[in-house]
Protein backbone atom coordinates (compact mmCIF):
# COMPACT_ATOMS: atom_id res chain seq x y z
CA UNK A 1 0.00 0.00 0.00
CA UNK A 2 1.28 3.42 -0.90
CA UNK A 3 1.14 5.27 2.40
CA UNK A 4 2.61 8.50 1.21
CA UNK A 5 -0.47 9.71 -0.64
CA UNK A 6 -2.54 11.80 1.74
CA UNK A 7 -6.17 12.13 0.63
CA UNK A 8 -7.62 13.79 3.73
CA UNK A 9 -5.67 16.19 5.86
CA UNK A 10 -7.04 17.56 9.15
CA UNK A 11 -5.05 20.23 10.96
CA UNK A 12 -5.89 21.68 14.41
CA UNK A 13 -9.60 21.07 14.04
CA UNK A 14 -11.67 22.74 16.77
CA UNK A 15 -15.44 22.58 17.17
CA UNK A 16 -17.18 24.58 19.91
CA UNK A 17 -20.83 24.15 20.69
CA UNK A 18 -22.69 26.66 22.81
CA UNK A 19 -21.80 25.03 26.11
CA UNK A 20 -18.85 22.71 25.42
CA UNK A 21 -15.95 21.98 23.10
CA UNK A 22 -16.55 18.77 21.17
CA UNK A 23 -13.27 18.72 19.26
CA UNK A 24 -10.12 20.25 20.78
CA UNK A 25 -7.62 20.86 18.01
CA UNK A 26 -7.05 17.46 16.46
CA UNK A 27 -4.79 16.72 13.48
CA UNK A 28 -4.48 13.59 11.37
CA UNK A 29 -4.06 12.39 7.80
CA UNK A 30 -5.94 9.69 5.94
CA UNK A 31 -3.98 7.94 3.19
CA UNK A 32 -5.32 6.99 -0.15
CA UNK A 33 -6.92 3.54 -0.38
CA UNK A 34 -6.73 2.68 3.30
CA UNK A 35 -9.42 1.85 5.82
CA UNK A 36 -9.05 4.44 8.54
CA UNK A 37 -10.86 4.01 11.85
CA UNK A 38 -11.86 6.65 14.36
CA UNK A 39 -12.31 4.82 17.66
CA UNK A 40 -13.57 6.00 20.98
CA UNK A 41 -16.51 6.11 23.36
CA UNK A 42 -19.81 7.84 22.65
CA UNK A 43 -19.52 11.62 22.81
CA UNK A 44 -15.77 11.58 22.17
CA UNK A 45 -16.20 13.73 19.07
CA UNK A 46 -15.95 11.06 16.35
CA UNK A 47 -19.20 11.87 14.60
CA UNK A 48 -18.63 15.62 14.86
CA UNK A 49 -15.18 15.24 13.26
CA UNK A 50 -16.61 13.06 10.51
CA UNK A 51 -19.47 15.44 9.76
CA UNK A 52 -17.14 18.41 9.53
CA UNK A 53 -14.99 16.56 6.97
CA UNK A 54 -18.19 15.61 5.13
CA UNK A 55 -19.04 19.36 4.96
CA UNK A 56 -22.27 18.74 6.89
CA UNK A 57 -21.19 20.79 9.88
CA UNK A 58 -19.34 24.08 10.28
CA UNK A 59 -16.02 23.96 12.10
CA UNK A 60 -14.92 26.56 14.60
CA UNK A 61 -11.32 26.62 13.39
CA UNK A 62 -8.67 24.49 11.71
CA UNK A 63 -7.72 23.45 8.19
CA UNK A 64 -9.21 20.50 6.33
CA UNK A 65 -8.56 19.41 2.78
CA UNK A 66 -10.21 16.48 1.05
CA UNK A 67 -8.44 15.31 -2.12
CA UNK A 68 -6.85 18.75 -2.31
CA UNK A 69 -10.16 20.58 -1.91
CA UNK A 70 -10.81 22.89 1.02
CA UNK A 71 -13.96 22.29 3.08
CA UNK A 72 -14.37 26.07 3.37
CA UNK A 73 -14.37 26.89 -0.32
CA UNK A 74 -15.12 23.72 -2.23
CA UNK A 75 -17.83 22.04 -0.16
CA UNK A 76 -19.88 21.23 -3.24
CA UNK A 77 -16.90 19.74 -5.09
CA UNK A 78 -16.12 17.60 -2.06
CA UNK A 79 -19.69 16.32 -1.88
CA UNK A 80 -19.33 15.04 -5.43
CA UNK A 81 -16.31 12.85 -4.64
CA UNK A 82 -17.39 11.42 -1.30
CA UNK A 83 -20.07 9.00 -0.16
CA UNK A 84 -21.64 9.43 3.24
CA UNK A 85 -23.42 6.95 5.47
CA UNK A 86 -24.94 8.67 8.47
CA UNK A 87 -25.52 7.10 11.83
CA UNK A 88 -29.22 6.11 11.92
CA UNK A 89 -30.25 8.01 8.79
CA UNK A 90 -33.70 7.36 7.36
CA UNK A 91 -34.72 7.37 3.73
CA UNK A 92 -37.56 9.00 1.89
CA UNK A 93 -40.82 7.41 3.10
CA UNK A 94 -43.05 5.15 0.98
CA UNK A 95 -40.41 4.44 -1.68
CA UNK A 96 -38.90 1.07 -2.52
CA UNK A 97 -35.15 0.48 -2.86
CA UNK A 98 -35.06 0.92 -6.63
CA UNK A 99 -36.95 4.21 -6.40
CA UNK A 100 -34.63 5.41 -3.65
CA UNK A 101 -31.65 4.56 -5.86
CA UNK A 102 -33.20 6.57 -8.69
CA UNK A 103 -33.69 9.49 -6.34
CA UNK A 104 -30.06 9.43 -5.21
CA UNK A 105 -28.86 9.08 -8.78
CA UNK A 106 -30.74 12.30 -9.51
CA UNK A 107 -29.32 14.01 -6.44
CA UNK A 108 -25.77 13.07 -7.43
CA UNK A 109 -26.44 13.76 -11.09
CA UNK A 110 -25.21 10.34 -12.23
CA UNK A 111 -26.68 7.67 -14.46
CA UNK A 112 -26.68 4.28 -12.79
CA UNK A 113 -28.64 1.07 -13.04
CA UNK A 114 -30.41 0.73 -9.67
CA UNK A 115 -30.40 -3.07 -9.85
CA UNK A 116 -26.64 -3.20 -10.40
CA UNK A 117 -26.10 -1.03 -7.34
CA UNK A 118 -28.34 -3.29 -5.27
CA UNK A 119 -26.49 -6.36 -6.54
CA UNK A 120 -23.24 -4.90 -5.25
CA UNK A 121 -24.60 -5.17 -1.73
CA UNK A 122 -26.59 -8.35 -2.38
CA UNK A 123 -30.00 -6.69 -2.05
CA UNK A 124 -31.34 -7.47 -5.53
CA UNK A 125 -34.07 -9.66 -3.98
CA UNK A 126 -35.29 -6.69 -1.93
CA UNK A 127 -35.58 -4.31 -4.89
CA UNK A 128 -39.31 -3.76 -4.37
CA UNK A 129 -39.14 -3.64 -0.57
CA UNK A 130 -39.39 -0.45 1.48
CA UNK A 131 -36.35 0.61 3.49
CA UNK A 132 -38.35 0.30 6.72
CA UNK A 133 -39.06 -3.37 6.01
CA UNK A 134 -35.35 -4.30 5.87
CA UNK A 135 -33.42 -5.97 8.67
CA UNK A 136 -30.62 -4.10 10.44
CA UNK A 137 -27.88 -5.60 8.28
CA UNK A 138 -29.84 -5.00 5.08
CA UNK A 139 -30.45 -1.38 6.07
CA UNK A 140 -26.72 -0.84 6.55
CA UNK A 141 -25.92 -2.53 3.26
CA UNK A 142 -28.45 -0.36 1.49
CA UNK A 143 -27.00 2.75 3.13
CA UNK A 144 -23.58 1.75 1.89
CA UNK A 145 -24.96 1.18 -1.61
CA UNK A 146 -26.24 4.78 -1.65
CA UNK A 147 -22.73 5.99 -0.80
CA UNK A 148 -21.30 4.21 -3.85
CA UNK A 149 -23.63 5.74 -6.45
CA UNK A 150 -21.30 8.55 -7.50
CA UNK A 151 -18.22 6.26 -7.64
CA UNK A 152 -16.69 8.24 -4.78
CA UNK A 153 -12.99 8.46 -3.95
CA UNK A 154 -13.75 8.28 -0.23
CA UNK A 155 -16.66 6.87 1.72
CA UNK A 156 -17.48 7.69 5.33
CA UNK A 157 -19.25 5.09 7.44
CA UNK A 158 -20.47 6.16 10.87
CA UNK A 159 -20.85 3.09 13.12
CA UNK A 160 -21.85 0.83 10.23
CA UNK A 161 -22.06 -2.34 12.35
CA UNK A 162 -23.71 -1.06 15.54
CA UNK A 163 -26.64 -3.29 16.47
CA UNK A 164 -25.89 -6.04 13.96
CA UNK A 165 -25.61 -9.73 14.77
CA UNK A 166 -22.22 -11.44 14.27
CA UNK A 167 -23.03 -12.80 10.81
CA UNK A 168 -24.33 -9.50 9.49
CA UNK A 169 -21.29 -7.79 10.97
CA UNK A 170 -18.84 -10.10 9.24
CA UNK A 171 -20.71 -9.78 5.97
CA UNK A 172 -20.44 -6.04 6.23
CA UNK A 173 -16.70 -6.29 6.89
CA UNK A 174 -16.32 -8.32 3.68
CA UNK A 175 -18.29 -5.67 1.80
CA UNK A 176 -16.16 -2.84 3.21
CA UNK A 177 -12.94 -4.68 2.31
CA UNK A 178 -14.29 -5.24 -1.22
CA UNK A 179 -14.99 -1.54 -1.58
CA UNK A 180 -11.47 -0.68 -0.46
CA UNK A 181 -10.01 -3.27 -2.84
CA UNK A 182 -11.86 -1.53 -5.66
CA UNK A 183 -9.84 1.60 -4.97
CA UNK A 184 -12.01 3.57 -2.57
CA UNK A 185 -10.67 5.04 0.65
CA UNK A 186 -12.83 4.20 3.67
CA UNK A 187 -13.13 6.25 6.86
CA UNK A 188 -15.24 4.67 9.58
CA UNK A 189 -16.10 5.01 13.24
CA UNK A 190 -16.76 2.11 15.58
CA UNK A 191 -16.94 1.09 19.23
CA UNK A 192 -15.80 -2.43 18.50
CA UNK A 193 -12.09 -3.04 18.89
CA UNK A 194 -12.20 -6.47 17.27
CA UNK A 195 -13.77 -4.82 14.24
CA UNK A 196 -11.08 -2.14 14.11
CA UNK A 197 -8.37 -4.74 14.51
CA UNK A 198 -9.67 -6.88 11.65
CA UNK A 199 -10.74 -4.12 9.32
CA UNK A 200 -8.67 -0.99 9.72
CA UNK A 201 -5.24 -0.31 8.30
CA UNK A 202 -4.76 2.51 10.79
CA UNK A 203 -6.81 3.73 13.72
CA UNK A 204 -7.00 6.93 15.75
CA UNK A 205 -8.26 6.82 19.33
CA UNK A 206 -10.41 9.84 20.11
CA UNK A 207 -11.19 10.76 23.70
CA UNK A 208 -12.73 14.04 24.96
CA UNK A 209 -12.21 15.66 21.59
CA UNK A 210 -8.52 14.80 21.35
CA UNK A 211 -6.55 12.11 19.54
CA UNK A 212 -4.69 10.12 22.16
CA UNK A 213 -3.11 7.55 19.84
CA UNK A 214 -2.79 6.99 16.09
CA UNK A 215 -1.10 4.02 14.40
CA UNK A 216 -1.74 0.64 12.84
CA UNK A 217 -3.56 -1.78 15.13
CA UNK A 218 -0.50 -4.02 15.17
CA UNK A 219 1.88 -1.28 16.27
CA UNK A 220 -0.50 -0.08 18.96
CA UNK A 221 -0.77 -3.61 20.36
CA UNK A 222 2.99 -4.12 20.21
CA UNK A 223 3.61 -0.84 22.00
CA UNK A 224 1.31 -1.93 24.79
CA UNK A 225 3.00 -5.31 25.08
CA UNK A 226 6.43 -3.70 25.07
CA UNK A 227 5.38 -1.50 27.94
CA UNK A 228 5.02 -4.68 29.96
CA UNK A 229 1.26 -5.21 29.67
CA UNK A 230 -0.04 -8.70 30.10
CA UNK A 231 -3.57 -10.02 29.88
CA UNK A 232 -4.75 -11.41 33.18
CA UNK A 233 -6.02 -14.56 31.51
CA UNK A 234 -4.19 -16.62 28.93
CA UNK A 235 -5.92 -16.08 25.59
CA UNK A 236 -7.34 -19.16 23.95
CA UNK A 237 -7.03 -19.71 20.23
CA UNK A 238 -10.73 -18.98 19.76
CA UNK A 239 -13.28 -16.79 21.50
CA UNK A 240 -17.01 -17.08 22.13
CA UNK A 241 -17.85 -15.29 18.89
CA UNK A 242 -15.86 -17.86 16.96
CA UNK A 243 -17.95 -20.52 18.69
CA UNK A 244 -21.16 -18.71 17.77
CA UNK A 245 -20.18 -18.29 14.13
CA UNK A 246 -19.00 -21.89 13.99
CA UNK A 247 -22.30 -23.17 15.39
CA UNK A 248 -24.66 -20.97 13.41
CA UNK A 249 -22.77 -20.84 10.13
CA UNK A 250 -21.24 -17.90 8.37
CA UNK A 251 -23.38 -17.80 5.25
CA UNK A 252 -24.96 -14.54 4.19
CA UNK A 253 -28.28 -14.72 5.90
CA UNK A 254 -31.11 -12.25 5.79
CA UNK A 255 -31.28 -11.99 9.58
Amino acid sequence: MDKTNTIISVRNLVKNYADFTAVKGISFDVYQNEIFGLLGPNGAGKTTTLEIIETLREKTSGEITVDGLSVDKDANEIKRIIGVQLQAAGYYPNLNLVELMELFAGLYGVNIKPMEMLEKVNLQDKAKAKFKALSGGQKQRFSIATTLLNSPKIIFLDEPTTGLDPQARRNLWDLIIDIRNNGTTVVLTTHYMDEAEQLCDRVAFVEHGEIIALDTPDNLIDQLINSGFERKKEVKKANLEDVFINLTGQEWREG
Partner: protein
Amino acid sequence: MNKSYNNTKATLALAKASFRSITRSPSAVVFTLAFPLIFILVFGFLGGGGVKLDLAVAPESDLQNPVIIALQHTSVVHLITDKNNAEIQQRLEKGTIAGVIDVRKNSIAEPAYLANVKYTSASMDKGNILKSILNNLMYTLNTKDLKPSVAELKESTVHGRTYRTIDFILPGQLGFSLLSTGVFGTAFVFFSLRQTLVIKRFFATPVKRSSIILGEGLARIGFALIGALFIILIGHFLFHFTLVHGVTTVLNMLILSTIGVIVFMGFGFVVSGIAKSESTIPPISNIITLPQFLLSGTFFSIENFPNWLQPISRALPLTYLNDAMRQVAFEGAGLWDVKQQILIMVIWGIGIYAVAVKVFKWE
Protein backbone atom coordinates in the same frame (compact mmCIF):
# COMPACT_ATOMS: atom_id res chain seq x y z
CA MET B 1 -16.14 14.19 -12.63
CA ASN B 2 -15.75 17.38 -14.60
CA LYS B 3 -19.23 17.08 -16.00
CA SER B 4 -21.20 19.99 -14.60
CA TYR B 5 -23.80 19.22 -11.97
CA ASN B 6 -27.39 19.48 -13.11
CA ASN B 7 -29.69 21.14 -10.57
CA THR B 8 -32.78 20.62 -12.70
CA LYS B 9 -32.19 16.90 -12.81
CA ALA B 10 -31.83 16.81 -9.03
CA THR B 11 -35.00 18.87 -8.56
CA LEU B 12 -36.99 16.63 -10.88
CA ALA B 13 -35.68 13.46 -9.22
CA LEU B 14 -36.86 14.88 -5.90
CA ALA B 15 -40.22 15.91 -7.32
CA LYS B 16 -40.72 12.43 -8.74
CA ALA B 17 -39.77 10.73 -5.49
CA SER B 18 -41.95 13.06 -3.46
CA PHE B 19 -44.92 12.62 -5.79
CA ARG B 20 -44.64 8.83 -5.57
CA SER B 21 -44.46 9.10 -1.83
CA ILE B 22 -47.51 11.36 -1.58
CA THR B 23 -49.68 9.12 -3.72
CA ARG B 24 -48.80 6.21 -1.43
CA SER B 25 -49.50 8.12 1.75
CA PRO B 26 -53.01 7.30 2.99
CA SER B 27 -53.45 10.57 4.87
CA ALA B 28 -52.65 12.68 1.80
CA VAL B 29 -55.16 10.82 -0.33
CA VAL B 30 -57.83 10.93 2.38
CA PHE B 31 -57.48 14.66 3.05
CA THR B 32 -57.08 15.75 -0.54
CA LEU B 33 -59.64 13.52 -2.20
CA ALA B 34 -61.76 11.37 0.08
CA PHE B 35 -63.00 14.02 2.53
CA PRO B 36 -63.91 16.63 -0.07
CA LEU B 37 -65.56 13.98 -2.23
CA ILE B 38 -67.62 12.66 0.66
CA PHE B 39 -68.88 16.16 1.42
CA ILE B 40 -69.63 16.71 -2.25
CA LEU B 41 -71.49 13.42 -2.48
CA VAL B 42 -73.54 14.19 0.64
CA PHE B 43 -74.43 17.69 -0.47
CA GLY B 44 -74.79 16.64 -4.07
CA PHE B 45 -77.52 14.18 -3.16
CA LEU B 46 -79.06 16.41 -0.50
CA GLY B 47 -79.23 19.46 -2.67
CA GLY B 48 -81.30 19.94 -5.77
CA GLY B 49 -84.71 19.71 -4.14
CA GLY B 50 -84.87 22.96 -2.26
CA VAL B 51 -87.56 23.08 0.43
CA LYS B 52 -89.63 19.94 1.04
CA LEU B 53 -92.75 19.91 3.22
CA ASP B 54 -94.14 16.76 4.73
CA LEU B 55 -97.92 16.95 4.98
CA ALA B 56 -99.81 14.05 6.56
CA VAL B 57 -103.21 13.04 5.23
CA ALA B 58 -105.60 11.96 7.95
CA PRO B 59 -106.60 8.30 7.61
CA GLU B 60 -110.30 9.16 7.44
CA SER B 61 -109.72 11.70 4.70
CA ASP B 62 -111.23 11.35 1.25
CA LEU B 63 -108.43 10.86 -1.28
CA GLN B 64 -110.21 11.24 -4.60
CA ASN B 65 -110.89 14.96 -4.57
CA PRO B 66 -109.45 17.99 -6.35
CA VAL B 67 -107.62 19.27 -3.23
CA ILE B 68 -105.58 16.11 -2.64
CA ILE B 69 -104.94 15.62 -6.36
CA ALA B 70 -103.68 19.19 -6.67
CA LEU B 71 -101.43 18.69 -3.63
CA GLN B 72 -100.02 15.53 -5.18
CA HIS B 73 -98.95 17.65 -8.14
CA THR B 74 -97.27 20.28 -5.99
CA SER B 75 -93.56 19.42 -5.99
CA VAL B 76 -92.81 21.17 -2.70
CA VAL B 77 -95.37 19.11 -0.79
CA HIS B 78 -94.76 15.51 0.09
CA LEU B 79 -97.97 13.75 1.14
CA ILE B 80 -97.84 11.07 3.82
CA THR B 81 -100.86 8.77 3.64
CA ASP B 82 -99.84 5.62 5.49
CA LYS B 83 -99.83 6.87 9.09
CA ASN B 84 -102.55 6.42 11.72
CA ASN B 85 -103.83 9.24 13.92
CA ALA B 86 -101.56 8.44 16.87
CA GLU B 87 -98.46 8.50 14.67
CA ILE B 88 -99.56 11.72 13.02
CA GLN B 89 -100.15 13.32 16.41
CA GLN B 90 -96.68 12.28 17.55
CA ARG B 91 -95.05 13.71 14.45
CA LEU B 92 -96.96 16.92 14.74
CA GLU B 93 -95.70 17.35 18.29
CA LYS B 94 -92.14 16.72 17.18
CA GLY B 95 -92.50 19.00 14.20
CA THR B 96 -91.23 16.40 11.73
CA ILE B 97 -94.30 17.06 9.59
CA ALA B 98 -95.60 20.51 8.75
CA GLY B 99 -99.26 19.71 9.27
CA VAL B 100 -102.13 17.30 8.71
CA ILE B 101 -104.95 17.66 6.22
CA ASP B 102 -108.35 16.03 6.32
CA VAL B 103 -110.66 16.49 3.32
CA ARG B 104 -114.34 15.43 3.60
CA LYS B 105 -117.26 15.54 1.20
CA ASN B 106 -119.64 18.22 2.36
CA SER B 107 -123.17 17.23 3.38
CA ILE B 108 -124.56 20.22 1.46
CA ALA B 109 -123.86 20.96 -2.18
CA GLU B 110 -121.74 24.10 -1.91
CA PRO B 111 -118.84 23.94 -1.32
CA ALA B 112 -118.40 20.34 -2.42
CA TYR B 113 -115.58 19.60 0.05
CA LEU B 114 -114.39 20.74 3.46
CA ALA B 115 -110.61 20.71 4.10
CA ASN B 116 -109.41 20.73 7.68
CA VAL B 117 -105.77 21.61 8.15
CA LYS B 118 -103.96 21.37 11.45
CA TYR B 119 -100.53 23.06 11.73
CA THR B 120 -97.99 22.57 14.49
CA SER B 121 -96.19 25.14 16.58
CA ALA B 122 -93.19 22.82 16.50
CA SER B 123 -92.67 23.62 12.82
CA MET B 124 -93.99 27.14 12.35
CA ASP B 125 -91.73 28.14 9.47
CA LYS B 126 -92.77 25.22 7.32
CA GLY B 127 -96.34 25.66 8.50
CA ASN B 128 -96.38 29.18 7.12
CA ILE B 129 -95.09 28.06 3.76
CA LEU B 130 -97.72 25.33 3.75
CA LYS B 131 -100.39 27.89 4.63
CA SER B 132 -99.58 30.06 1.64
CA ILE B 133 -99.37 27.05 -0.67
CA LEU B 134 -102.80 25.90 0.48
CA ASN B 135 -104.28 29.39 0.18
CA ASN B 136 -102.94 29.70 -3.30
CA LEU B 137 -104.18 26.25 -4.22
CA MET B 138 -107.64 26.88 -2.81
CA TYR B 139 -107.87 30.19 -4.60
CA THR B 140 -106.99 28.57 -7.92
CA LEU B 141 -109.44 25.72 -7.39
CA ASN B 142 -112.26 27.98 -6.28
CA THR B 143 -111.86 30.57 -9.02
CA LYS B 144 -111.30 28.13 -11.86
CA ASP B 145 -114.63 28.98 -13.47
CA LEU B 146 -114.76 32.64 -12.56
CA LYS B 147 -113.60 35.72 -14.44
CA PRO B 148 -111.53 38.01 -12.22
CA SER B 149 -113.42 41.07 -11.21
CA VAL B 150 -110.50 43.37 -10.39
CA ALA B 151 -107.28 42.18 -12.04
CA GLU B 152 -105.96 38.97 -13.42
CA LEU B 153 -102.51 37.86 -12.30
CA LYS B 154 -100.19 36.69 -15.08
CA GLU B 155 -97.10 34.92 -13.79
CA SER B 156 -93.93 33.98 -15.59
CA THR B 157 -90.37 33.01 -14.57
CA VAL B 158 -87.13 34.17 -16.15
CA HIS B 159 -84.97 31.16 -16.98
CA GLY B 160 -81.51 31.77 -15.55
CA ARG B 161 -78.72 29.37 -14.69
CA THR B 162 -79.86 27.08 -11.94
CA TYR B 163 -77.73 27.74 -8.88
CA ARG B 164 -77.46 24.34 -7.30
CA THR B 165 -76.08 23.42 -3.88
CA ILE B 166 -73.09 21.87 -5.65
CA ASP B 167 -72.21 25.27 -7.15
CA PHE B 168 -71.71 26.56 -3.65
CA ILE B 169 -70.33 23.44 -1.98
CA LEU B 170 -67.79 22.32 -4.57
CA PRO B 171 -65.56 25.42 -4.62
CA GLY B 172 -65.58 25.38 -0.83
CA GLN B 173 -64.54 21.73 -0.73
CA LEU B 174 -61.89 22.37 -3.34
CA GLY B 175 -60.49 25.14 -1.16
CA PHE B 176 -60.55 22.84 1.85
CA SER B 177 -58.74 20.14 -0.09
CA LEU B 178 -56.02 22.59 -1.13
CA LEU B 179 -55.74 23.93 2.39
CA SER B 180 -55.25 20.50 3.98
CA THR B 181 -52.83 19.32 1.30
CA GLY B 182 -50.82 22.50 1.64
CA VAL B 183 -50.72 22.75 5.41
CA PHE B 184 -50.80 19.16 6.72
CA GLY B 185 -48.85 17.62 3.87
CA THR B 186 -46.03 20.14 3.85
CA ALA B 187 -45.77 20.29 7.64
CA PHE B 188 -45.61 16.52 8.08
CA VAL B 189 -43.23 15.87 5.22
CA PHE B 190 -40.64 18.46 6.16
CA PHE B 191 -40.87 17.64 9.83
CA SER B 192 -40.38 13.93 9.27
CA LEU B 193 -37.66 14.38 6.64
CA ARG B 194 -35.79 16.52 9.14
CA GLN B 195 -36.46 14.18 12.05
CA THR B 196 -35.38 11.01 10.23
CA LEU B 197 -32.24 12.72 8.89
CA VAL B 198 -33.39 12.29 5.29
CA ILE B 199 -32.62 15.94 4.65
CA LYS B 200 -29.21 15.58 6.29
CA ARG B 201 -28.44 12.70 3.96
CA PHE B 202 -29.55 14.91 1.04
CA PHE B 203 -27.11 17.55 2.24
CA ALA B 204 -24.30 15.03 1.86
CA THR B 205 -25.06 15.08 -1.88
CA PRO B 206 -24.38 18.11 -4.09
CA VAL B 207 -28.10 19.02 -4.18
CA LYS B 208 -29.04 22.64 -3.43
CA ARG B 209 -31.48 23.59 -0.69
CA SER B 210 -33.59 25.42 -3.22
CA SER B 211 -33.86 22.19 -5.23
CA ILE B 212 -35.19 20.35 -2.19
CA ILE B 213 -37.89 22.98 -1.56
CA LEU B 214 -38.71 23.29 -5.25
CA GLY B 215 -38.88 19.53 -5.82
CA GLU B 216 -41.18 19.06 -2.85
CA GLY B 217 -43.28 22.01 -3.91
CA LEU B 218 -43.66 20.77 -7.48
CA ALA B 219 -44.78 17.35 -6.29
CA ARG B 220 -47.31 18.79 -3.87
CA ILE B 221 -48.70 21.29 -6.37
CA GLY B 222 -48.94 18.53 -8.97
CA PHE B 223 -50.78 16.26 -6.56
CA ALA B 224 -53.10 19.06 -5.41
CA LEU B 225 -53.96 19.97 -9.02
CA ILE B 226 -54.74 16.38 -9.95
CA GLY B 227 -56.96 16.23 -6.88
CA ALA B 228 -58.63 19.51 -7.85
CA LEU B 229 -59.23 18.36 -11.41
CA PHE B 230 -60.71 15.11 -10.13
CA ILE B 231 -63.06 16.97 -7.77
CA ILE B 232 -64.13 19.41 -10.49
CA LEU B 233 -64.80 16.65 -13.04
CA ILE B 234 -66.76 14.47 -10.62
CA GLY B 235 -68.78 17.51 -9.59
CA HIS B 236 -69.43 18.46 -13.19
CA PHE B 237 -70.38 15.09 -14.61
CA LEU B 238 -72.18 13.57 -11.64
CA PHE B 239 -73.77 16.61 -10.00
CA HIS B 240 -73.97 19.18 -12.81
CA PHE B 241 -71.49 21.55 -11.26
CA THR B 242 -71.63 24.67 -13.42
CA LEU B 243 -68.54 25.44 -15.52
CA VAL B 244 -69.65 28.50 -17.46
CA HIS B 245 -66.90 28.54 -20.07
CA GLY B 246 -66.05 24.84 -19.97
CA VAL B 247 -62.34 24.09 -20.29
CA THR B 248 -61.33 27.76 -19.84
CA THR B 249 -63.16 27.82 -16.54
CA VAL B 250 -61.42 24.63 -15.43
CA LEU B 251 -58.01 26.10 -16.35
CA ASN B 252 -58.79 29.29 -14.45
CA MET B 253 -59.80 27.23 -11.44
CA LEU B 254 -56.55 25.27 -11.63
CA ILE B 255 -54.55 28.50 -11.76
CA LEU B 256 -56.40 29.72 -8.68
CA SER B 257 -55.75 26.33 -7.05
CA THR B 258 -52.02 26.72 -7.70
CA ILE B 259 -51.95 30.15 -6.08
CA GLY B 260 -53.95 28.77 -3.17
CA VAL B 261 -51.81 25.73 -2.54
CA ILE B 262 -48.59 27.76 -2.71
CA VAL B 263 -49.93 30.16 -0.06
CA PHE B 264 -51.13 27.27 2.12
CA MET B 265 -47.78 25.47 1.79
CA GLY B 266 -46.28 28.56 3.43
CA PHE B 267 -48.36 27.76 6.51
CA GLY B 268 -47.08 24.19 6.29
CA PHE B 269 -43.45 25.36 6.30
CA VAL B 270 -44.16 27.50 9.36
CA VAL B 271 -45.84 24.59 11.19
CA SER B 272 -42.94 22.23 10.38
CA GLY B 273 -40.57 24.82 11.80
CA ILE B 274 -42.37 25.55 15.06
CA ALA B 275 -43.61 22.02 15.86
CA LYS B 276 -41.58 20.46 18.64
CA SER B 277 -42.66 16.89 17.96
CA GLU B 278 -44.68 14.94 15.44
CA SER B 279 -47.69 14.92 17.79
CA THR B 280 -47.83 18.72 17.96
CA ILE B 281 -48.24 19.04 14.19
CA PRO B 282 -51.96 18.14 14.03
CA PRO B 283 -53.07 20.60 16.74
CA ILE B 284 -51.02 23.45 15.29
CA SER B 285 -52.23 22.64 11.78
CA ASN B 286 -55.80 22.48 13.00
CA ILE B 287 -55.49 25.92 14.56
CA ILE B 288 -54.72 27.15 11.06
CA THR B 289 -57.13 25.03 9.04
CA LEU B 290 -60.24 24.65 11.22
CA PRO B 291 -61.16 28.34 11.54
CA GLN B 292 -60.75 28.71 7.79
CA PHE B 293 -62.73 25.56 7.21
CA LEU B 294 -65.62 26.92 9.27
CA LEU B 295 -65.41 30.67 8.68
CA SER B 296 -64.30 31.01 5.07
CA GLY B 297 -67.60 30.16 3.45
CA THR B 298 -66.82 26.50 2.87
CA PHE B 299 -70.28 25.32 3.90
CA PHE B 300 -72.27 28.50 4.46
CA SER B 301 -72.09 31.86 2.86
CA ILE B 302 -70.27 34.24 5.17
CA GLU B 303 -73.12 36.73 4.70
CA ASN B 304 -75.11 34.51 7.07
CA PHE B 305 -72.60 35.00 9.87
CA PRO B 306 -73.24 37.51 12.64
CA ASN B 307 -71.79 40.94 11.98
CA TRP B 308 -69.01 40.67 14.54
CA LEU B 309 -67.75 37.48 12.90
CA GLN B 310 -67.67 38.73 9.35
CA PRO B 311 -64.48 40.82 9.65
CA ILE B 312 -62.68 37.68 10.86
CA SER B 313 -63.99 35.74 7.89
CA ARG B 314 -62.90 38.51 5.58
CA ALA B 315 -59.36 38.34 6.92
CA LEU B 316 -58.78 34.68 6.01
CA PRO B 317 -57.08 33.67 2.75
CA LEU B 318 -59.41 30.74 2.11
CA THR B 319 -62.36 33.16 2.01
CA TYR B 320 -60.84 34.83 -1.03
CA LEU B 321 -59.92 31.58 -2.71
CA ASN B 322 -63.48 30.29 -2.26
CA ASP B 323 -64.92 33.58 -3.44
CA ALA B 324 -62.72 33.70 -6.53
CA MET B 325 -63.48 30.05 -7.35
CA ARG B 326 -67.24 30.64 -7.16
CA GLN B 327 -67.08 33.71 -9.33
CA VAL B 328 -64.95 31.94 -11.91
CA ALA B 329 -67.01 28.77 -11.97
CA PHE B 330 -70.56 30.04 -11.70
CA GLU B 331 -70.42 33.61 -12.92
CA GLY B 332 -67.86 32.96 -15.61
CA ALA B 333 -65.45 35.59 -14.31
CA GLY B 334 -61.95 35.70 -15.77
CA LEU B 335 -58.84 35.82 -13.62
CA TRP B 336 -58.62 39.59 -14.09
CA ASP B 337 -62.13 39.96 -12.64
CA VAL B 338 -60.99 38.32 -9.41
CA LYS B 339 -57.72 40.26 -9.21
CA GLN B 340 -58.67 41.68 -5.84
CA GLN B 341 -59.08 38.21 -4.35
CA ILE B 342 -55.83 37.07 -5.95
CA LEU B 343 -54.04 40.15 -4.63
CA ILE B 344 -55.18 39.42 -1.06
CA MET B 345 -53.97 35.82 -1.39
CA VAL B 346 -50.62 37.03 -2.71
CA ILE B 347 -50.30 39.44 0.24
CA TRP B 348 -51.01 36.51 2.59
CA GLY B 349 -48.41 34.51 0.68
CA ILE B 350 -45.73 37.18 1.08
CA GLY B 351 -46.51 37.51 4.77
CA ILE B 352 -46.51 33.80 5.53
CA TYR B 353 -43.32 33.09 3.57
CA ALA B 354 -41.60 35.93 5.41
CA VAL B 355 -42.48 34.11 8.64
CA ALA B 356 -41.54 30.74 7.14
CA VAL B 357 -38.04 31.96 6.25
CA LYS B 358 -37.57 32.97 9.89
CA VAL B 359 -38.88 29.82 11.59
CA PHE B 360 -38.08 27.06 9.07
CA LYS B 361 -35.45 24.59 10.29
CA TRP B 362 -33.33 22.34 8.12
CA GLU B 363 -31.93 20.24 10.96
